[in-house]
C-alpha cells in the first residue's frame, strides 16, 4: 500500500497527461468496432422510422419491449458514478479519488445513451416535443399524471446536473492540462478551465461548490430511478404494479453500475497503465461494496417473489409462474444465475484481488442485470389480465441491432472522453499521495520517540 507515497507529483501529471496521447492499438480497434455498431444502429432506426414500429416485431400485447429494457439498464448504470463521486465524497472515502472521474463520465454517457430509447420507441417521433410542457396559445399541456412525463423531466435534470458535477470536478485538472497542452487542446482547456490559477480563494469556492453539488446529487439519483420504477409501479399490469419497485430499481441500478465500474476500472488500468493509482486494494474495496449492494438487491428481489406468492393474487401469481416455467424461463433463470449466484464469488479475498477474475465477473453481473431488465418488461405483458391476448414475442433484428448500437455508442463516447479529458483526477490523486506521505511520516516520528524512551529507560536502569 505504501508504494503510493513514493510517487512523484510530476510523475502523476506525466502519467495522466500521457494517457491523453499515444494510446495502445487496442484503443483504436475498440473505437472502430463501436463506431461500426453505431452506424448499424442508425441504419436500423432509419428503417424502423420509415416502415413503422412494426418492424421491431413489437405487437399487441407487447407494446413495450427491448427499448424500454435498455432504457432502464442504461439509466441504472448511470447511478454508480454519482454514488462513487457524491456519496463517497460526502463520506470522505479516500480510495474513491483515483477512480471517480471516469465513473462520473460513465454516468453522463449512460444517461445520454438511455435518453435515446424513449425517443426511438415513440410511434410518432416527430411529435416528441409534445411531451414537454411548453407554453402555447392553445393552453394544451402534457398530462402531468403520466409517469412518462416525470421521466422526461427527471432525465433532463439528472443529465444536466451530473454533467455539471463532472465538469466542476475537472476544473483544476483542466488547468493542469492547459498548462501542459498546445494547439487546439490548449484553446479548449484554457476555455474550459475558466482561468483557474489555484489560488486559495478558488480552492475554497471550488470545495464548497463541489460538496454542495454532491449533496444535491445523491437524493436526485435516488429519485430518478424511483421515477423510472414508477413507469411500471404506476400501471395496473400484474407484476408491474409493485410497491417495492422504486427501492428495487435503485438497488439494481447501483448493482449494475458498480459492475460497470469494475469493468472500466480494469480496462483503464490495462489500457492507460494506471497500475500505480488503481491499486488492488481499491479494487478490493469496490468489490466489497458491490457485494453488499448485490445482497440488498437479492433481498428485494426475493421479497418481491415472496409477497407475490403469499398474496396469492391470481394475475401476479400467473406471471410469476410463467416467468419461472413459462417460455421466458431462460431469461429469468439466466438472471438469477448471473446476478444472484455469481456475486458470491466476491466473498473470497483471493477472487476480489484478481483483476481478471473481477473483470469477467463484472461482465457476467451486467449481463444478468440486463436480463433482469428484460424480464421486468416482457413476461408480464406476455401473460396479462386477458388470457385471450397471451402471446410470446422475442425482440427482432431491429431491436437487437439498436441495442448493440447503444453499447457501441456508450463505449465510443467514453473512449473519446478518455482521450480528451484526464480520466483520472490528478489533483485528488496528489491529495491521496500527500495523505499517504503524511501517514508514513507520522509513523516514522513515532518510531523515533519509542527509541528515545527505551534509551532513557535503559539509562535509568543503569542508574
Amino acid at each position, binding site marked *: 500500500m505504501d508504494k503510493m507515497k513514493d510517487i512523484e507529483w510530476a510523475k502523476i501529471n506525466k502519467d495522466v497527461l500521457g494517457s491523453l496521447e499515444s494510446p495502445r492499438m487496442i484503443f483504436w480497434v475498440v473505437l472502430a468496432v463501436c463506431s461500426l455498431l453505431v452506424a448499424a444502429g442508425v441504419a436500423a432506426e432509419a428503417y424502423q*422510422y420509415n416502415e413503422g414500429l412494426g418492424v421491431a416485431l413489437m405487437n399487441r400485447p407487447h407494446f413495450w419491449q427491448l427499448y424500454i429494457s435498455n432504457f432502464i439498464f442504461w439509466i441504472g448504470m448511470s447511478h454508480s458514478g454519482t454514488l462513487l463521486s457524491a456519496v463517497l465524497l460526502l463520506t470522505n472515502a479516500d480510495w474513491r479519488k483515483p477512480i471517480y472521474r471516469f465513473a462520473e463520465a460513465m454516468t453522463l454517457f449512460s444517461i445520454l445513451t438511455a435518453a435515446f430509447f424513449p425517443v426511438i420507441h415513440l410511434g410518432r417521433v*416527430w411529435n416528441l416535443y409534445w411531451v414537454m410542457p411548453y407554453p402555447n396559445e*392553445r393552453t*394544451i399541456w402534457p398530462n402531468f399524471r403520466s409517469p412518462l412525463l416525470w421521466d422526461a423531466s427527471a432525465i433532463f435534470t439528472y443529465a444536466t446536473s451530473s454533467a455539471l458535477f463532472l465538469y466542476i470536478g475537472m476544473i483544476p485538472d483542466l488547468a493542469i492540462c492547459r498548462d501542459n497542452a498546445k494547439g487546439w487542446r490548449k484553446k479548449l482547456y484554457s476555455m474550459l478551465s475558466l482561468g483557474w490559477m489555484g489560488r486559495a480563494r478558488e480552492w475554497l469556492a471550488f470545495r464548497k461548490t463541489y460538496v454542495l453539488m454532491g449533496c444535491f446529487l445523491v437524493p436526485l439519483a435516488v429519485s430518478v430511478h424511483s421515477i423510472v420504477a414508477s413507469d411500471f409501479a404506476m400501471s395496473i399490469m400484474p407484476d408491474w404494479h409493485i410497491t417495492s419497485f422504486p427501492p428495487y430499481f435503485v438497488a439494481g441500478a447501483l448493482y449494475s453500475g458498480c459492475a460497470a465500474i469494475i469493468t472500466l476500472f480494469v480496462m483503464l488500468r490495462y489500457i492507460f497503465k494506471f497500475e500505480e493509482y488503481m491499486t488492488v486494494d481499491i479494487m478490493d474495496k469496490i468489490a466489497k461494496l458491490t457485494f453488499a449492494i448485490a445482497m440488498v438487491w437479492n433481498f428485494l428481489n426475493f421479497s418481491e417473489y415472496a409477497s407475490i406468492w403469499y398474496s396469492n393474487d391470481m394475475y401476479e401469481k400467473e406471471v410469476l409462474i410463467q416467468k419461472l416455467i413459462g417460455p421466458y424461463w431462460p431469461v429469468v433463470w439466466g438472471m438469477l444465475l448471473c446476478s444472484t449466484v455469481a456475486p458470491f464469488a466476491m466473498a473470497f479475498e483471493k477472487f476480489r484481488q484478481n483483476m481478471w477474475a473481477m473483470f469477467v465477473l463484472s461482465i457476467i453481473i451486467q449481463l444478468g442485470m440486463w436480463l433482469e431488465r428484460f424480464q421486468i418488461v416482457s413476461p408480464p405483458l406476455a401473460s396479462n389480465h386477458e388470457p385471450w391476448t397471451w402471446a410470446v414475442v422475442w425482440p427482432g433484428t431491429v431491436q437487437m441491432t439498436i441495442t448493440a448500437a447503444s453499447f457501441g455508442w456508450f463505449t465510443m463516447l467514453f473512449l473519446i472522453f478518455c482521450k480528451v479529458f484526464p480520466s483520472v483526477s490528478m489533483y485528488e490523486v496528489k491529495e491521496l499521495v500527500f495523505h499517504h506521505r503524511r501517514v508514513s511520516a507520522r509513523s516514522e516520528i513515532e518510531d523515533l520517540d519509542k527509541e528515545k524512551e527505551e534509551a532513557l529507560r535503559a539509562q535509568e536502569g543503569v542508574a
Partner: protein
Amino acid sequence: MWQKAKALNLYKLLGHRGLMLVMAAMLLSAGTAWADDVSNAKQPIHFPHYIHAGKFKINCMYCHTYARRSKVAGIPPVAKCIGCHKHIPAVRNKPRIKKLFSYWKRKEPIPWLKVHDVPDFVYFTHKRHIRRFIFQDGRPTQQVCGMCHGDVKTFVTARKIRPLTMGWCLSCHRQFQGDSDIGKPMPAKRWMIPVAATDKPVMQVEYPQPAVLDPEHPKTMTHSEIKRMSDRLPKKIRDHLVHAPHDCWKCHV
C-alpha cells in the same frame, strides 16, 4: 379521403428528413401563404364573387345552399348556375360563361380547387354556426359568413384569409366563452364588429328557413318563432370541465 391521408402522409414524410423539417417549418411559419393561398392554383372558372355577392347582393346561401342544412356549405351544382344564366343573354358570350355552359353540355362537374380545407380529423359543421348567428341572432348573412371566409363580396375567386387552425377556432370560442366550454351561447353584440371596412348589413333574414333540418318537412318558422324555440334550450348545454385542456373529442373524430 384515403388519398387525403396519403397526401398528409407525404407531407409528413417531407417533414421527416431533418433538414426538410426545418424548411417546412420555416415555410409554414412564413405564413399560411405557401400552404393555403390558392392564387398559385388556378380555378377552372374565374368566378367573380364581387359581382354576385357584391354587385347583385345575392345572399351567400342562395348558392351555398347547404350551409344551413348540412355540416358542409356545398358548392352550387352546375344546374344552379345554368338556372340563372340561361336567362341572362347579356353575359352569354363571356368566355367563362361559355366554359360554364360547355361543362353543362358535357354534364361534367366543374373541378374547383378546394380553398377552405380543414384536416379530416376536424369536425366542423356550418349548420350549427349559421343557425346560431343568422337565425338566432339575426345577423346579416354576409357578415356571419365573413367571420371565417372574409369579405368575399370583394373577391374574385374565394381566397383563404383566415388560418382555420385549431388555435384560431379557439381564439373565438375561448375569447367569448371563457375557458373550456365550446358551444356556450355567445353574447350577440360582440360580433357586431364589421368584418371589413366596407361592410354594412346586407339584408335581413326574412326569407323562410326550415326550423328542423328535415328536407321533407319544409315547415317554415319566422325569426321570432325560432327565437322562442331557442330560448327553450337549457342554459348549460354541454357545459362541463374535463381533465384535458379542451373537449378535443368534440372536434377530433
